[in-house]
């Protein structure tokens, strides 16, 4: 009997919704989604160029002031970039590229000097303390490497993911972060990494040794970040490969939006980046462990997920972008589900906002991770719970829009068993 009523009311809902809103064309939703991607990657590029200018100023004229400007530029550059991450898991072209710019976590001893407490080569990574800045030549997997000149090519082609180990991160935001801040040796105490500006001083004032090579490294890594972002921004312009891939199959395109939202919410941000750190109580198990910027990393991931659903984005110069949205599409098939999604996204942002504002008031993310710190755990887990909860609704949308079986197409290991051996 209850089943009968449920069916009746579902039918009523369908009829009601048909009267309320017409579904936008899927092509329009996808076009707006691509427009927002284009704007976000373009903003990331603009911010990275500002970082590049600040880094050049630091290298030309090392001082406390130029180091601090470079740090400020790095922090600003993270704001648009973290909002792009929602594009990652749904779009293969982004996922294949992402490791160059945002790989994490890293064994930073690969790059530069580290504190003795960091340890030596590990079971997993024999290059964990390679220190390329101090070593102009070394051996990598049995081959001699000439690193006398630290170039973007050396970083991207030889050093990054050396020996097939993901923790050998030689490029991207977090490598640059380490070069600007240094290790955070405060444990769960107050403070971020505290690299002195004199690590870039040339001549007798140089601290940490090899300041010329450190400057070379920082410059190469920043140039690489700019060129990598240039490439990705171009993929989303008219005629770009990312935009074209999305338009190939409209249903698969809509599914890609939801896959990006769900995977970033659940497995990546809630799981790998947030809950794991709480469970391990490790102060360095945070996304931006050198700069202590992790609260912003998670917060802007959340913002990115929300603005992709709503189909609106405000550019870093204040220009608004908006158009047909996934939300409109859901309203047309199930308005209650759209309300549920909006409410859950808002709840998540409230929880992530609380974590962010508390961090900004002085209670840093690595302090929240401390064993037995119930308040810190509650702040982080509030965000985790919100993200997990919103994933449930994203799944419901996949079902409501009848996209359930989409994922089964186009999976290499499932459709083409021979591919796993390639």
């Amino acid at each position, binding site marked *: 009997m209850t*089943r009968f009523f*449920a*069916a009746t009311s*579902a*039918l009523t809902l*369908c*009829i009601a919704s*048909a009267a309320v809103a017409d579904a936008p064309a899927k092509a329009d939703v996808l076009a707006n989604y691509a427009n927002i991607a284009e704007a976000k990657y373009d903003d990331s590029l603009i911010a990275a160029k500002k970082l590049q200018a600040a880094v050049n100023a630091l290298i030309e004229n090392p001082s406390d002031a130029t180091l601090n400007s470079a740090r400020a530029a790095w922090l600003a550059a993270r704001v648009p970039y973290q909002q792009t991450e929602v594009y990652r*898991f749904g779009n293969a072209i982004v996922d294949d590229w992402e490791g160059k710019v945002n790989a994490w*976590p890293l064994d930073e001893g690969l790059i530069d000097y580290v504190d003795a407490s960091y340890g030596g080569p*590990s*079971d*997993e990574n024999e290059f964990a303390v390679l220190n390329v800045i101090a070593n102009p030549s070394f051996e990598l997997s049995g081959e001699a490497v000439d690193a006398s000149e630290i170039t973007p090519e050396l970083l991207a082609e030889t050093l990054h993911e050396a*020996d*097939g180990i*993901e*923790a050998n991160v030689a490029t991207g935001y977090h490598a640059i972060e380490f070069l600007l801040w240094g290790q955070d040796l405060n444990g769960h105490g107050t403070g971020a990494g505290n690299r002195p500006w004199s690590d870039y001083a040339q001549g007798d004032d140089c601290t940490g040794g090899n300041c010329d090579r450190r400057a070379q490294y920082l410059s190469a890594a920043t140039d690489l970040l700019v060129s990598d972002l240039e490439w990705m921004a171009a993929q989303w312009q008219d005629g770009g490969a990312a935009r074209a891939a999305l338009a190939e199959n409209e249903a698969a395109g809509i599914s890609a939006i939801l896959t990006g939202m*769900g*995977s*970033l*919410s*659940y*497995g*990546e941000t809630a*799981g*790998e980046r947030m*809950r794991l750190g*709480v*469970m*391990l*109580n*490790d102060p360095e198990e945070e996304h931006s462990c050198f700069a202590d910027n992790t609260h912003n990393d998670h917060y802007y991931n959340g913002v990115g997920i929300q603005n992709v659903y709503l189909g609106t984005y405000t550019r870093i110069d204040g220009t608004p972008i908006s158009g047909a949205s996934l939300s409109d599409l859901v309203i047309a098939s199930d308005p209650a589900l759209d309300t549920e999604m909006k409410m859950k996204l808002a709840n998540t942002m409230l929880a992530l906002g609380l974590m962010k504002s508390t961090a900004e008031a002085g209670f840093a993310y690595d302090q929240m991770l401390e*064993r*037995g710190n119930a308040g810190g755990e509650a702040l982080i887990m509030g965000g985790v719970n919100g993200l997990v909860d919103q*994933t449930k609704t*994203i*799944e*419901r949308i*996949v*079902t409501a829009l009848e*996209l*359930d*079986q*989409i*994922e*089964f197409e186009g*999976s290499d*290991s*499932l*459709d083409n*068993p021979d591919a*796993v*051996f390639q």
Partner: protein
Amino acid sequence: MRKLVLLAALALPLTAFAQDREPILLDIAQSHILPSYARLADTAQVLSETAKADCAPNSDALRAAYADAFDSWISVSHMRFGPSEVDDRAFSLAFWPDTKGFTPRALSRLIDDNDNAVQTAAEFAETSVAGRGFFALEQMLYDPAFADQGSAEYRCDLIRAIAADIAANATAIDTDWQTYAQSLTRTGENSRYRNDDEAMQEMFKALSTGLEFTADTRLGRPLGSFERPRPKRAEARRSARSLRHVELSLIALQDLALRLSADHPDVTEDFQAAFDRAIQRAQSLGDPNFAGVSTPEGRFRVEALQQTVSDIRRIANTQLGPALGIGAGFNSLDGD
């Protein structure tokens, strides 16, 4: 008006032909989940008591109790939702893969600090999950690195604390499942599952995620690449349990797959054959900790086993999913 008719036509079949999921959900709860978690709770209790009686790392009784309890965990570890996720219980039972060496570091830190947390269950439960559970216990029992670190007395206390913590988590999950099982069939607006499609999707996800984990992580991690095999990444290699875990997980997943496909005999038949082939291949492999992945011959055999698991995944995703009318959803392995 045409639009309304079309919508009505679309809405009706969903309910008219809705599958009655309740018998399958009840069967999985009663015969697959509850007995498995009960067995885990029992064997974990035995492990804790055995450690109390004899904490020597090379004690036969202790190692046997460890093996029994670990077997029970692997046989139910694909049921990662609800009670297992409260208070990070499942992570506390088994933190693996450990890509950054957290477990040896957490254990060393406890030992070097003579950390008092081992004296109180509640305090020990606050420590890092990497220093607790079966994988931490394995290193304490089998890794020479911990054979003489710190004092023998502290190591003994630590082993007992880990065993007691395993028992506490296993019991808590088992207890919670007694009530959680009802939520699988009592679905609705204010329940964990809005309808039985969602409850069914949870079961389906347990199967597909379990298969993915065995293929990509249990087998894929030690395989590495042809140029760079990674035998040291094999699961529980120190106690030579890597292959056993693959076999146990396949046996448990087969049981789940057959129950899930009960209304679709053709799918059941394909599952039966594919699982039999994979389990048989695992049983005849003869490389307990996958040390053989470093040789071309040994590698080929492990790849062949991985291939049979991929065959099962294909049946789950292309046959069972559509037959049940259920999508894959998101799982914790999404992301990198």
